[in-house]
């Protein structure tokens, strides 16, 4: 015990510093010094750019840091700027920071240094600054040539009203330099021995070619041009109109010219379609109306220059913005004295018009008359263009079901009101088979079930005058090649750019098909027709939303108008972090592990391409992370371990190396390029005891087995009793027999009962008052007084006694053992030769067996079996239970021992107890020493 106590104390002492070290690592991180600080200068923007890294081997996750940056000018001690830059830092991340100098960077040497401090709430105070990094020098003067005079900044862009500083560097200290701004002498301040600076506040615009500043000494004058820009104004009077319903013209007043050489850009963006165009003019922009019957337009005009961005929006209905072109072919007809008929023609963009007429005297024009107006409607004409048709083919029981879609014709091409669409289905394998469907407008789709033949379907739009040209699609009776590998792509602000490789040289065009809202069923099928020369396009739609997976199918159209699938592409306009976590099923919980599975999680319908999964594991003890896990901090500042599964198809994970009887919390969250799912659904699990499985797997079956055995024993008790402890034991099943066999004495056998044929049964009734003599008992003889045991003595049937001879007595010694334990026995066979009867060794079974063995060896060797006389003792010798017909006269008398004794051939000498004076033969029918029992 003492040794154990010493070992335990030593172990705990060894653990204590380790634990202290761990807590120190977590609670008080060492300050991190920035590394690889690099300084560069952008002369155009007059910016100093810093780049550095922070190497932190202890943290694997993002954490907040503060970087204190010092900038000095001319010499390190002359600090001119101090700034704290806070950001979130990842491990080994390259950090950037820029500083715009008011003084041109070429005019002074700058020095930069920084220090860091971890500023994360998860890291407890105190927070310490690291050591300063060494000073890094930024010297732009190194790149200067050997000119005597330099003026900076070059070609500086400034906005009117802002401040700007100009400086010069004179390489000749003796030179007398004078500087001029637009021919006005300017006085500056000396910054260094050869550097002078000139600060201009609230600069104004002078001319488009810039404001000139120059300095002159003895040599060639040098100068700079400040490119001053007027403030960009918001566009005014933004409006759109159309003359032909094909092109929208948007105009605006851009305001004052900024005066810069670089003109501001004007971009027109339409939110419903998601399209945009860069305007070629600063006050006008043309927008091509598409064929998809879009009537409402939400335009945003964005004006942008180097300094500012201005925007203005309008919601515009195409029909409400029609500015008709001027009528033409105006002719007077049938001019009479009072009437004049005038005819003219109009450009047809609709059917309803309003004509207003006013008159003026032509010879000497003075004023127009009042207007009179009249509405009229032009006659319709047949639609001028075929509808844009596409199809969706599904195979049901091998039969193609075709859903035809078409886009409504624009007003320009409809030339009236479309009444219905005709769909003509022609079986190419059976030319005589023709099926015509008439679909009333404004329906834009119909479904046709076909056979396994090739079909050609023609769709025409009809108004009251006639049909439009036909649009044709061909359908094959068999599914095409759908086993095209799906590619991935990324969306941009403009939509989904995609390109493809043509399969056939004779393609007549390409069709890109997609669903606008794939998350909502049924799919709103969209398509875009492209010419045969196109192998790339950009699919844009106002319905595209971030975080939605869009699937595109690119078809090649053959000369027979058959569509063959070329490529499949899937992409997100913008990937988002997963919005929910998979439902995780936990199984195989043991004391050291459990299995997580989320096989039902659909990776295809998430808010981004699932790149893998994070398995978070929290333990109450906050123990060290297991192999493969990395320590991380959660938003609630708790520490947990994270395992990264970088295979999105792996949807099971076994958490190993757990502690028995420990509580854990786990979470499985997927991650995309935009981030991971929510971390607010941790599930708890407690590992069981290490031996609980033993209880389950071993003890319970054992209990069950014992229970079954007990039931069997109960049901078979009688049989069991007969087999195991019968009332009359079978000597052949005695354990002594095995002992005898062990000695391999073939001469020792158990006598068969049949060998001793009883010929008479004598019932001996001991007279009252007969005394029993118990060897070794402390009871007085009077205590046994009154007992009347009855014995059945099996005696020879005819002859009482055949003569003297050796006598062998059989006893069941199992009963003797009990008797010896009790210290007394009811009866013993008595032989005439007292010296041969020794009771002592028989009081214990071992002694008895030994004695038996020895005695048997001796006696049996001398006595032939056939000549032996037997003194047969009843096996029902118990005075209490054996003789039931003779109830005990003295019931309180102790039961003594059972009188059932193992039947065994015992030499008479051994079987005879030591005779004493008080011995009694009342319980046994004793034979005369000279008598022989048979």
């Amino acid at each position, binding site marked *: 015990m003492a040794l154990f106590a010493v070992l335990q104390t030593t172990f705990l002492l060894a653990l204590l510093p380790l634990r202290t070290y761990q807590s120190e690592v977590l609670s008080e991180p060492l300050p991190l010094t920035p590394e690889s600080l690099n300084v560069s200068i952008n002369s155009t923007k007059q910016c100093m750019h810093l780049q550095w890294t922070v190497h932190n081997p202890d943290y694997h996750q993002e954490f907040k840091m503060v970087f204190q940056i010092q900038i000095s000018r001319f010499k390190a001690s002359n600090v001119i700027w101090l700034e704290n830059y806070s950001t979130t830092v990842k491990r080994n991340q390259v950090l950037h920071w820029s500083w715009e100098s008011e003084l041109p960077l070429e005019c002074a040497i700058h020095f930069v240094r920084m220090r860091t401090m971890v500023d994360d709430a998860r890291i407890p105070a105190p927070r310490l600054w690291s050591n300063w990094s060494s000073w890094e020098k930024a010297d732009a003067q190194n790149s200067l040539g050997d000119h005597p005079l330099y003026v900076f900044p070059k070609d500086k862009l400034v906005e009117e009203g802002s401040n700007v500083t100009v400086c010069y560097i004179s390489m000749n200290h003796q030179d007398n330099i004078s500087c001029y701004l637009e021919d006005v002498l300017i006085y500056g301040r000396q910054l260094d021995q050869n550097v002078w600076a000139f600060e201009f506040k609230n600069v104004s615009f002078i001319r488009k070619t810039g404001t*000139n500043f120059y300095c*002159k000494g003895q040599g060639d004058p040098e100068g*700079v*041009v400040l490119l001053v820009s007027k403030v960009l104004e918001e566009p005014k009077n933004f409006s759109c109109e159309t003359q032909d319903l094909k092109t929208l013209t948007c105009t605006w007043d851009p305001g004052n010219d900024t005066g810069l*050489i670089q003109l501001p850009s004007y971009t027109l963006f339409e939110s419903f379609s998601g399209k945009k165009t860069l305007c070629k003019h600063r006050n006008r922009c043309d927008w091509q109306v598409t064929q998809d019957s879009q009537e409402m337009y939400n335009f945003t005009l964005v004006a942008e220059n180097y300094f500012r961005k201005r925007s203005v929006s309008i919601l515009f209905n195409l029909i409400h913005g029609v500015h008709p072109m001027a009528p033409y072919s105006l002719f007077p007809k049938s001019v009479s004295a009072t009437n004049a008929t005038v005819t003219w023609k109009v450009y047809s963009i609709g059917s309803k018009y309003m004509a207003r007429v006013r008159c003026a005297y032509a010879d000497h024009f003075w004023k127009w008359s009042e207007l009179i107006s009249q509405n009229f409607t032009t006659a319709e004409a047949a639609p001028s263009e075929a509808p844009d048709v596409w199809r969706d083919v599904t195979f049901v029981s091998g039969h193609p079901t075709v859903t035809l879609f078409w886009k409504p014709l624009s007003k320009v091409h409809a030339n009236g009101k479309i009444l219905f669409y005709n769909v003509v289905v022609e079986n190419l394998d059976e030319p005589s088979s023709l099926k015509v469907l008439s679909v009333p407008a404004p329906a834009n789709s119909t479904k046709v079930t076909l056979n396994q033949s090739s079909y050609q379907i023609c769709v025409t739009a009809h108004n009251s005058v006639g049909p439009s040209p036909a649009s044709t699609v061909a359908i094959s009776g068999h599914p095409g090649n759908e086993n095209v590998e799906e590619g991935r792509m990324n969306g941009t602000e403009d939509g989904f750019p995609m390109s493809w490789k043509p399969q056939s040289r004779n393609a007549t065009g390409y069709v890109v098909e997609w669903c606008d809202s794939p998350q909502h069923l049924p799919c709103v099928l969209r398509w875009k027709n492209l010419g045969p020369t196109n192998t790339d396009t950009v699919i844009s739609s106002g319905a595209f939303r971030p975080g939605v997976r869009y699937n595109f199918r690119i078809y090649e159209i053959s000369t027979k108008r058959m569509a063959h699938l070329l490529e499949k592409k899937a992409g997100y306009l913008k990937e988002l972090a997963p919005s929910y976590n998979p439902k995780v099923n936990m199984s195989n919980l043991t004391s050291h592990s459990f299995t997580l599975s989320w096989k039902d999680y659909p990776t295809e319908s998430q808010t981004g391409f699932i790149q893998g999964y994070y398995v978070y594991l929290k333990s109450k003890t906050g123990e060290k992370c297991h192999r493969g896990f990395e320590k991380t901090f959660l938003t609630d500042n708790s520490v947990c371990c994270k395992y990264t599964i970088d295979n999105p198809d792996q949807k099971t994970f076994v958490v190993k190396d757990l502690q028995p009887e420990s509580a854990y919390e786990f979470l499985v969250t997927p991650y995309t390029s935009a981030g991971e799912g929510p971390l607010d659904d941790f599930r708890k699990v407690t590992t069981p005891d290490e031996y609980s499985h033993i209880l389950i797997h071993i003890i319970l079956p054992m209990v069950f087995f014992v229970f079954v055995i007990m039931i069997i024993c109960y049901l078979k008790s009688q049989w069991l009793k007969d087999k195991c402890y019968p009332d009359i034991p079978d000597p052949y099943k005695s354990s002594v027999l095995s002992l005898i066999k062990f000695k391999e004495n073939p001469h020792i056998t158990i006598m068969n009962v049949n060998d001793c044929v009883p010929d008479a049964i004598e019932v001996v009734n001991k007279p009252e008052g007969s005394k029993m003599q118990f060897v070794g008992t402390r009871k007085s003889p009077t205590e046994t007084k009154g007992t009347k045991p009855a014995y059945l003595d099996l005696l020879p049937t005819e002859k009482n006694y055949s003569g003297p001879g050796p006598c062998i007595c059989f006893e069941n010694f199992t009963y003797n053992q009990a008797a010896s334990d009790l210290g007394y026995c009811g009866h013993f066979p008595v032989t005439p030769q007292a010296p041969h009867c020794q009771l002592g060794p028989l009081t214990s079974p071992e002694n008895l067996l030994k004695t038996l063995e020895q005695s048997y060896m001796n006696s049996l060797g001398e006595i032939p079996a056939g000549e032996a006389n037997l003194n047969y003792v009843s096996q029902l010798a118990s005075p209490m239970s054996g003789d039931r017909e003779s109830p005990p006269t003295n019931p309180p008398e102790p039961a003594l021992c059972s009188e059932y004794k193992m039947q065994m051939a015992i030499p008479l000498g051994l079987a005879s107890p030591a005779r004493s004076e008080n011995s009694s033969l009342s319980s046994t029918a004793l034979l005369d020493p000279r008598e022989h029992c048979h």
Partner: protein
Amino acid sequence: MKVLAAGVVPLLLVLHWKHGAGSPLPITPVNATCATRHPCPSNLMNQIRNQLGQLNSSANSLFILYYTAQGEPFPNNLDKLCSPNVTDFPPFHANGTEKARLVELYRIIAYLGASLGNITRDQKVLNPYAHGLHSKLSTTADVLRGLLSNVLCRLCSKYHVSHVDVTYGPDTSGKDVFQKKKLGCQLLGKYKQVIAVLAQAF
């Protein structure tokens, strides 16, 4: 057979490759007899004199138009900002032979033509709305090209000079705006000065 074609043909090509095998042949060999594409006009020298006179008459207005468009302080500091101290400007010796004077004239016109091209390019960026200046610069450049052609024709036809080494001024494309303005002004000041001498010399 394919193996033979794939292995042997490239080997033969490599073995028979010589330096310049793929480069274009010079149109006019150095030692070849001078030949002009079109016959030179008979009054070639008069043409040259007239062109020089035309350039001389417009040089000052071009100069004024230029420095005015650059804004102050250029108009008031011509001596400092537009002084005609142009480095590497080809020399001209008025007392030389006609052939020598024509060769030197050729070099000067070539130099001026290239420099005027740079100025025109720069001013179209710096002064996108100075259409008068652009037009004047373009006209002057056109006349310079005609003059260069005539001088070459004269040299070729009379003196059988087919090749003249020329030099060009500095490229201003990488310089800042002030340098472009200043170099342009200096060049046009030099041009005004030189063209007067040339007009006088022929």
